[in-house]
């Protein structure tokens, strides 16, 4: 049982990285990025492709990719997504859904449908033995640590910095924020840029831990959604807890029957929606 719990928490760490970007983008501009999962896969393939071209460590490539992802996110928001925002949520849903289809087909065309992974020179098979005969994968542990660190960093950015204050102000009341002199389009683009750093990180780690295929995106999107909604919109710690809960539930399901993991996760997600639709840690407003 303890082992299931530990494995579930480790899986949840990865889901947390899937979900944080989604949580940030939704929190700042009420935009639901339905291409979130596909962008994660795109990030993974970016590492895979670079690895083929440059013979350097995959970790170094992942780190080099992060500033590129920041720029990509900024540009995407500034050039494409900003013009879809408004009272009506439909344009942004349709555009990101379209991007999802484009990315899947582009990856299929370039890399074929075969699952690929990032070769970590055996790091992904290393493990640490814990007392009680439990062994924990080193890579999943690193992922969980990164997830907790990313959550803490994002919450700090949101609550304690100038940029975070601007994020909260435009989220509360875009018109009044503009009245103060903020450029909402720039603030939105910064939020998406930060989200894409997390997306690229999640993609690289996903492909190190397991395999990725061009059609994997929608499932990752689903996990991200579930984590965000279980945790409660607008709180990053909530997203972390939601992701860990989802990971543990899936792991319990997998233990009962290898085919049950994913739908066990959905059951808990639906149960939370019924019992506590605002999520476990909803954003508190004065």
């Amino acid at each position, binding site marked *: 049982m303890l082992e299931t719990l530990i494995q579930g928490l480790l899986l949840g760490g990865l889901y947390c990285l899937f979900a944080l970007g989604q949580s940030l983008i939704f929190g700042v501009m009420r935009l639901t990025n339905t291409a979130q999962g596909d962008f994660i896969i795109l990030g993974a393939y970016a590492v895979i492709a670079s690895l083929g071209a440059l013979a350097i460590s995959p970790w170094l490539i992942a780190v080099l990719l992060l500033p590129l992802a920041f720029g990509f996110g900024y540009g995407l928001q500034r050039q494409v997504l900003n013009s879809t925002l408004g009272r009506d949520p439909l344009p942004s849903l349709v555009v990101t859904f379209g991007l999802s289809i484009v990315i899947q087909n582009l990856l299929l065309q370039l890399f074929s449908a075969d699952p690929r992974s990032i070769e970590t020179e055996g790091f992904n098979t290393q493990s640490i033995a814990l007392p009680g005969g439990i062994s924990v994968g080193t890579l999943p542990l690193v992922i969980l640590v990164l997830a907790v660190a990313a959550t803490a960093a994002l919450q700090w950015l949101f609550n304690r910095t100038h940029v975070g*204050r601007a994020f*909260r*102000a435009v*989220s*509360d*009341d875009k*018109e*009044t*924020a*503009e*009245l*103060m*002199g*903020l*450029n909402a389009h720039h603030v939105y683009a910064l939020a998406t840029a930060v989200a894409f750093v997390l997306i690229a990180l999640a993609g690289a780690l996903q492909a190190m831990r397991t395999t990725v295929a061009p059609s994997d995106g929608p499932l990752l999107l689903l996990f991200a959604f579930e984590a965000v909604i279980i945790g409660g919109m607008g709180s990053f710690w909530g997203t972390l807890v939601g992701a860990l809960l989802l990971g543990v539930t899936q792991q319990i399901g997998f233990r009962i029957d290898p085919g049950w993991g994913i739908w066990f996760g959905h059951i808990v997600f639906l149960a939370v929606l019924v019992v506590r639709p605002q999520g476990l840690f909803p*954003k508190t*407003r*004065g």
Partner: protein
Amino acid sequence: MGALLATIGLTAFYGDAQALFGIDFELGAGEMVAVIGANGAGKSTFMKAVTGLVKTAPHGIRFAGEPIGGLPPGEIVKRGIALVPEGRRLFPSLSVEENLLMGGFSKRAGPWTMERLFKLFPILAQKRDQPATSLSGGQQQMVAIGRALMSNPTLLLCDELSLGLAPIVIKEIYDALPAICAEGMTVVIVEQDVAMAQQVSQRIYCFQEGRVSLHGRSSELTREQISQAYFGIGSEEAPHA
């Protein structure tokens, strides 16, 4: 000496609906002017037009001799016009102090600093770390005024300061205005309470259905003139005829 703010035949629309039908308005530096009128007369639209929240033609509004109509709000606040919006519109996720810091985003230099505001409204210093919308209505209005002052404006626009506040609180808020004007600040207040408007202002503009129905020196206008312009009843020549 030119006017600080002048609008000439200013029109404004919400989509297809016209809200302002040619407003002529003039304001000298250091003046305190009140805009009165019934609900829907166009007072708030006028404030929004001047601050760039409602788009207008470039030459409809001149500030310090330059056309500012249709500029983005951020550009207008940099030039020195700040608005205390109707209903205060504080940022609920931000503390009192953070709301004030947002007001100073444009980084205009001038006499107003956080310390100075805390001297004007000492209660805000005590509550600086609380969420802004957890304060009482009057205290929230102080935050809204403070937030506007943090941009060190040349012209301060106050839209319905007394909205939803108890009379004693309204008095407290208005008592702070002389200290604000002492710096030579030019102030426009939009006010539903005509007696209050007449008492604190030097001149009054009365709006009716998107037009100026009356303007003059506050001390010289009679109750009858004002109520006629306010409601448009019994007037021989209806302004929109």
